């Protein structure tokens, strides 16, 4: 059963070592970058054409405490996601499973924090039984351009985290069906890249929408 030896064609190109699945995810993320870029561009356009910013009458947001802890939670989930990815690369299914589940738990924690912040600002009367909630701190969606942009940007990021959680859960389900192995886990790699992307967007949101609004003139100390 000898197979005819064909001549090796000259100059066979070396294709990118990336699998099509990973390549597709990277290319797709370019359009996601443009989507959040659109939101940021709109924010800075409104920022540049309205002084003072945020416009008077809006309750300014604060980076402390929930956004700060949410940042820690989300960035930690990026780290755990990476550890889980390393786990499957090393063929350690147990390590992948626990760290992946921890990533999902952290992601859910972030979403709960975000939901709390939205309720606290949009509908504080719902949680007025909490002693530290002050209904006068409400900020309506339509109050002014800052409030509009704030809720739209954090809201769309929250929806992307939700989408990321759905992806992580689907991947976990596929993992439980034995569809991934040390050599074949493009889905996990692509899902992890998506999760890192939503983490990175949060870094920009946290700086622009929280830190720069809380400290418009820079941190004055004390």
């Amino acid at each position, binding site marked *: *059963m000898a197979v005819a030896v064909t001549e090796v*064609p000259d*100059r*066979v*190109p070396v*294709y*990118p070592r*990336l*699998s*099509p699945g990973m*390549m*597709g995810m990277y*290319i*797709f993320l*370019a*359009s*996601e970058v*443009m*989507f959040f*870029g*659109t*939101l940021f*561009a*709109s924010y800075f*356009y*409104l920022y540049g*054409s309205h002084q003072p910013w945020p416009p008077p009458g809006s309750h300014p947001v604060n980076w402390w405490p929930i956004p700060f802890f949410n940042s820690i939670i989300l960035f930690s989930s990026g780290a755990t996601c990476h550890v889980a990815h390393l786990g499957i690369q090393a063929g350690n299914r147990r390590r992948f499973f626990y760290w992946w589940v921890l990533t999902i738990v952290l992601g859910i924690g972030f979403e709960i924090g975000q939901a709390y912040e939205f309720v606290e600002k949009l509908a504080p009367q719902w949680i007025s039984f909490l002693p530290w909630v002050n209904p006068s701190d409400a900020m309506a*969606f*339509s109050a*002014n*351009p800052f*409030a*509009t*942009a704030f809720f*739209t940007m954090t809201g769309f990021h929250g929806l992307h985290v939700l989408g990321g959680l759905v992806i992580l859960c689907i991947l976990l389900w596929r993992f439980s069906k034995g569809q991934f192995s040390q050599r074949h886990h493009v889905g996990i790699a692509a899902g992890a890249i998506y999760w890192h992307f939503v983490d990175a967007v949060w870094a920009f949101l946290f700086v622009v929408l929280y830190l720069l609004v809380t400290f418009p003139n820079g941190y004055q100390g004390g």
Partner: protein
Amino acid sequence: MATVAQPQVIDEAYERSLWSPITVWLTTTDHKLIGIMYMFTSFLAFLVAGIFALIMRVQLAQPNLNVVDAETYNQLVSAHGTTMIFFFVTLFLTGMANYIVPIMVGARDMAFPRVNALGFWLVPVSIGLYYSGFFAGGALNAGWTGYPPLTSKHFNPGLGVDFWTLSLIVWAISGIMASVNFLTTILALRAPGMTLLRLPLFVWAQISTSLLLLIVGAPLAGAMILTEIDRQFGTNFFTSAGRPVLYQHLFWFFGHPEVYIMILPGFGMISEIIPVFSRKRIFGYESMVLAIFGIVFLSMGVWAHHMYTVGLNIYVETMFMALTAAIAVPTGIKFFNWMATAWQGAIEFTTPMKFAFGFLATFVIGGITGVYLSAVPVDTQLHQSYYVVAHLHYVLFGGSVFTIFAGIYYWFPKWTGRLLNERLGNWNFWTMLVGFNGTFLIMHTLGLDGMPRRIATYAREDWAGVNFFITVMSFLLAFSVLLFVINVLYSRKHGVIAGNDPWDGNTLEWATTSPPEPYNFERVPEVRSFMPLRDAKLAAAGSPTASDH
């Protein structure tokens, strides 16, 4: 040798004809069937939007007519623009590329066939959403651009605007899916030896188009989402408390590259057709690729030339003016390359070649008026006049649609196995060329005379003669499309059998059967230049192969 594996029939149902059970079409992930569905759907959109245009022309045939009332006219203008731009030209080109690009690069399908199917099936959703407006109290009536405050809830409470924004969000998602798929297919699934600089120019054009839609699709969706949030929640992105001009920036950051999304695949087709029917190599392959990316790069920095009259800073306007005029340079390079390709070639005036030359002649007029309009003082005068209508139809119809017809006549034998009728094709071409120029050439003078566009009627008696002439000519144009439809219906059954390679082509799609099997190639050919089939034919004839490219 006896054990050469026969490729398995992947999709038995594919073997059946176009009229096979609907389930084949509903469930297919074959890029060729999806491509045909794209083209069929968007051609229906073309016919509908063409009828809208005819109604508008009847309305404008004489002053003060009231064939349709002003509100209906506004809806027709908006639907004509939206349908032609989003649902016809862009999607038809996506369909052609869906069919041809994987074969041209020697792949067996797109990289993500199911994403491809999903991307297509979002198209009827998108079109259905837009046209739902007509049955829900009136579709969009603010022009295809939909500027606020014309689209704000306060001034436009109907559902038409909401259906429009949702439709375009779905459209953008579909387009992004297609773009991701095309780019991955072209980068990852090329045949052995198909280096980047051996890609056919149509494939390069599809890379640039996909890149553009990938980058600007999301800003379009963003603009639509913010419009809808403003409408539903009373928020302040584009209201007077926010900034209405912000919408125009977002929209035109999409809208201008969209022009190139609609023309670059056409450029690619012309770059395939002219060398084949001139029996020459394309002149300046590398400069063609560079020119495409020059256009891609510049097209994302010129959007504010649609906004000269909103009161931008004069220095900003000057920058946009310079960048806009600069696009003429890469486009000019392409033009001269096409002419140099045809120069002293053994030209065969087949119907695709006629359309290609028709494209060269009409598109150059659109290009020159484009440079003219890029000047701030000129545009300030001509903005919102029929001059702009004439210009945009010269680039969109004389440009994109002529290339689409050239491409259909060129690839129809590959899609169906039969040639389109040359005699009907000749009539189709000449009636279209005369009808098109008769309709739009004289609109330049109407614009210079100050006739405003998008207005339901006019009062000046001295515009009546010209407008009547335009209306008559627009029906000639419609007649040419009718001839084309007849040609397709006739030739599908009774056309001349084409064989694999009716045009003596250069690229890989002519190396396989017509129509190709589901797996495209039994054996992927070896690629040594950007004209792999020509190399193979020369080698078979004993000539030295074309020098390595």
